C-alpha cells in the first residue's frame, strides 16, 4: 500500500496546498498515474501512484493547505483496503465498496457530514488539522491551563488548532511555536544578522523560514548561507558538504547565476505572464521574397543599415504600426490591481517596444509614435535604441510607455519562436528567421524566402479572430512591401 504524503519541495517549505486530486476514491490506478497535485510557494508537484490498484482513501481535500509529511491519502489493492490505518476503516467501505459515494459532489459530502453521525472520511483529515474538536469537548490539564496563562492563549483554541480534546502543556508549546512562526509575526534580523545577510547575499526571511524563527541571529544567517552556495534559491536543496557530495547523485553545480538587473526584470515579467495571463500564439508564414529584393535594390541608400536584419525589422515595425490602430485590443494594457474590476485601457498612441538582447539581459526600449515614422526613420530609431541598450545608456523613459512589443528572434535563427507578452500589454509579435523554401507562384514551384511571424496575445481580452486578422493584415503588408515605403 502506498501512503501519499506531502513532500518537502524546498528548504523553505513547511506546508503545501493540495491543488487537485486527479481521481476519486475507488478509481482504478496504474503505477505512474498522477494521483494528486500539490503546490508550495515556489513550485507544484504531481504525486504518482507507485503501484497498480485503487485510490483507497483521501485524507485531505483539494484546496486545503497542510504541513509537510501530512498523509494525503492511500493507494493500494482492494485487499489492502482493510489494512488502512485507523479512522479510515469506514472510508474504505464507503470509498472502495461504494464508488458512487465517491462521485458525490463536495456539496453532497458536506451535507452528509452535517446531517448525520456517519462522518465522511474525506472530511476527517482536514477537520482534525484545521477545525479540531468542537469547543465544548476540549478539556485541559491544570499544567496546560497554567502554560496557557503564561503564554496568554486560550486552551480551547489550542485544542482546536492542535486537534486534541485533552490539551496538555506540550500542545500549548506547539500552538505558541506555530503562532510565532505562522501567524504572520514578521521575521526580523538582529543588526548583525542583517549585515551578514547583506554581505553574503541571502534573504533574511528565507533564513527565518528555514531556521523556523522570527528572530534571525547572525549564526542563523551564517549557517543558512553556508549551506547555500549562493544567493539563488534554485540550488536550495544542494548539499555543499564535500564529504556527502560524492554520495549525492544530484548534478554537481557549475556556477550559480544571480537574477539581477535585466534578468530580474525578465524573471518577474515572465513569472507574471505565466501565472496570470491567458497567452495564446497564432503563427503566420510570410513570403518576404519581394521584401528582400526590395531591400537589395535599395542597396547603397541603406548603407547606414548594412545589417539586413534591422532593416527588415524596420519594415515589420512599419507594418505593425500601420495596422495596429485598426486592432485597439492589441494596442492596450490590462489594468488589474487586485483581480476585481479589471479593465482594458486602449491607447491612441502607437508606442512599439522592441525587445533587444544584451549582455546584461533582455531590454525593451520604446519607439514612441511609431505610426508616424517612415521605414527609414524607424530604421534609424532601431539602430540608435539598440546601441543605447547595449551600452546601458537608456533613460528610464525610453523603457516605458510601450503599447505593443515586437521581438526579433530571427536574428538568432529561430524558425518558429513564440514570444511572451510584455505585461501589462496584450500582445507581442515575434519575428523569426528568413528561410529559402519551395513556394508556389502562378502554379509553379519556385524558391521563395519565407519567414514566420508569431503573435502571442492575451486570450482573456483579445479574441482569436481579432488576433488572426491583425496578423494576416501585417502579413499582407509585408508581402506588398512597396506599400510600406509610402
Amino acid at each position, binding site marked *: 500500500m502506498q501512503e501519499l504524503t506531502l513532500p518537502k519541495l524546498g528548504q523553505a517549505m513547511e506546508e503545501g496546498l493540495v491543488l487537485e486530486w486527479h481521481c476519486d476514491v475507488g478509481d482504478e490506478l496504474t503505477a505512474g498515474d498522477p494521483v494528486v497535485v500539490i503546490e508550495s510557494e515556489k513550485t507544484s508537484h504531481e504525486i504518482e501512484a507507485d503501484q497498480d490498484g485503487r485510490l483507497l482513501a483521501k485524507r485531505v481535500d483539494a484546496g486545503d493547505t497542510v504541513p509537510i509529511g501530512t498523509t494525503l491519502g492511500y493507494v493500494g489493492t482492494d485487499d489492502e483496503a482493510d489494512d488502512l490505518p485507523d479512522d479510515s476503516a469506514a472510508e474504505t467501505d464507503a470509498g472502495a465498496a461504494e464508488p458512487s459515494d465517491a462521485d458525490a459532489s463536495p456539496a453532497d459530502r458536506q451535507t452528509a457530514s452535517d446531517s448525520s453521525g456517519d462522518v465522511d472520511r474525506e472530511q476527517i483529515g482536514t477537520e482534525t488539522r484545521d477545525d479540531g474538536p468542537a469547543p465544548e469537548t476540549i478539556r485541559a490539564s491544570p499544567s496546560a491551563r497554567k502554560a496557557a496563562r503564561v503564554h496568554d492563549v486560550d486552551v480551547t483554541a489550542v485544542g482546536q488548532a492542535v486537534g486534541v480534546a485533552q490539551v496538555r502543556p506540550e500542545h500549548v508549546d506547539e500552538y505558541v511555536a506555530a503562532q510565532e512562526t505562522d501567524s504572520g509575526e514578521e521575521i526580523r534580523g*538582529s*543588526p*548583525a*544578522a*542583517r*549585515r551578514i545577510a547583506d554581505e553574503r547575499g541571502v534573504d533574511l526571511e528565507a533564513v527565518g523560514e528555514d531556521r523556523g524563527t522570527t*528572530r534571525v*541571529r*547572525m*549564526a542563523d544567517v551564517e549557517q543558512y548561507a553556508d549551506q547555500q552556495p549562493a544567493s539563488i534559491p534554485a540550488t536550495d536543496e544542494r548539499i555543499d558538504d564535500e564529504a556527502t557530495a560524492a554520495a549525492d547523485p544530484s548534478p554537481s553545480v557549475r556556477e550559480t547565476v544571480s537574477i539581477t538587473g535585466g534578468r530580474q526584470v525578465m524573471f518577474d515579467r515572465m513569472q507574471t505572464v505565466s501565472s496570470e495571463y491567458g497567452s495564446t500564439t497564432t503563427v503566420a508564414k510570410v513570403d518576404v521574397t519581394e521584401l528582400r529584393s526590395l531591400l537589395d535594390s535599395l542597396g547603397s541608400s541603406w548603407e547606414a543599415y548594412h545589417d539586413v536584419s534591422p532593416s527588415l525589422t524596420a519594415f515589420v515595425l512599419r507594418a505593425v504600426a500601420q495596422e495596429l490602430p485598426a486592432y485597439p485590443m492589441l494596442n492596450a494594457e490590462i489594468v488589474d490591481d487586485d483581480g476585481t474590476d479589471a479593465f482594458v485601457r486602449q491607447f491612441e498612441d502607437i508606442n512599439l517596444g522592441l525587445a533587444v538582447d544584451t549582455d546584461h539581459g533582455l531590454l525593451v526600449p520604446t519607439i514612441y509614435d511609431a505610426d508616424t515614422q517612415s521605414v527609414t526613420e524607424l530604421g534609424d530609431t532601431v539602430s540608435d535604441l539598440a546601441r543605447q541598450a547595449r551600452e546601458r545608456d537608456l533613460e528610464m523613459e525610453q523603457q516605458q510607455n510601450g503599447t505593443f512589443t515586437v521581438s526579433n528572434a530571427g536574428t538568432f535563427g529561430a524558425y518558429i519562436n513564440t514570444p511572451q507578452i510584455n505585461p501589462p500589454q496584450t500582445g507581442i509579435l515575434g519575428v523569426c528567421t528568413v528561410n529559402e523554401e519551395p513556394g508556389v507562384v502562378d502554379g509553379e514551384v519556385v524558391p521563395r524566402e519565407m519567414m514566420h511571424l508569431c503573435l502571442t496575445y492575451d486570450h482573456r481580452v483579445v479574441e482569436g479572430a481579432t488576433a488572426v486578422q491583425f496578423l494576416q493584415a501585417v502579413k499582407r503588408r509585408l508581402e506588398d512591401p512597396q506599400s510600406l515605403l509610402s
Partner: protein
Amino acid sequence: MSQQLDAETETTTQTIRESLNQALHEELERDERVLLYGEDVAEYGGLYKISEGLYEEFGEERVFDTPLAETSLGGTAVGAALAGARPVVEIMYADFLPIAGDHLINYAAKMYFNYGDETSVPMVVRSMYGTGDGHGLHHGQSPEAWFMNVPGLKVVMPSTPREYKGLLKGAIRDDDPVIFLENKMRYGESGPVPDEEYTISLCESDVKREGTDATIVAIGGMVYEALEAAERLSEQGIECEIVDPRTISPLDTGPILESVEKTNILVTAQEAPTFGGFGSEVAAQVIDDAFFYLDAPVKRVGAPFTPIPFAENLEEAYQPTADDIESAVIDAIET
C-alpha cells in the same frame, strides 16, 4: 591598548589600600606642589587608613585635616589648583560629593574653558562608593553617572591594585579635574603591583579578559564580579571578553567597539541604578558606532531604581553581582 603586565616586570602582591597609600606617598615625595587634605586624612590616617603615615612623613603643610565642610574641600581644591598647586582632597563618601557639587560641576569643570590662558584645574577628589556593608542609603552610592554628564570633569573608577596605584598617580599628574572613585568594599583585594615607578594614563580602556562570545563592559568593583561570571560562563562554553574602561569620562570607546565587533553581544555592569547610567551611555555609543555588529539586545546590569536599602536581605537583592552578569550574558545569547 591593553596594558597587560609585562612578564618581566617585577611585582609585589599588595592590597588596593597599600597601593593607594604608596601612590600618594610617591606623588607627595615627587612633587612639592602636591597636597593631601580632607576629613580625618592626617592624624587618623584616613577613615579606611588609605593615608596612614603620610601626615607624619610630610607634615601639616602638605597633609592636613580640615573642617567638616565638603564645600570648602571642593572649593579650596579648585582655588589651589588654579593657583598652581596639585591638591588631592578626600571627600569621605561619594554620597557627600553633591555637597561639593557646585565646585565640581560649576567651577572645576569649567575653569579651563573659562580662562583664556591655558590655566586648568589639576585637582583630584578621592571619594568612596560601594555597597554590601550595611551602610545604607547615604554611604555607598556609586556616583559616576551624576558627573558623567559634566563636560570638563574626568571620572576614574579603577578595579585592581595595580590600576588603583597607576591611575591615582596618573590622575595627580593630569592637568584636568579628576573625580577618583574608590570602592570601599574592595580595599582589601590584592593583586600584583609593579615594583618599579609607573603611572597609568587616564582615558584608556583596558581588556581584562579576552573572549569571543560576549563583551562585558564592567566598571570599578563590578570588574571582579564580571571576572567571576566569565569563569562560570566559560565552564558552560561561553567565552566572555571583559573591557574595563577605568576612566568613565571621557570614555575611551575604542576597545569596547572593537570587542563588540568581535563578539556581537554587549552586556554592561555597574553598581549604580541601571536607568540613566554608565551602561546606558555605553549602549548608546555602541548602537551609534557598531549597530550592525550587534546580534542581540544590549543587556545592562545594575541596581534597581531605588535608594540603597539597609536591611540585609534588601541590600542583597539590590546589589548587582556575578549572578546577574551571568544571567544577562545568557539572556543576550539566547534572546
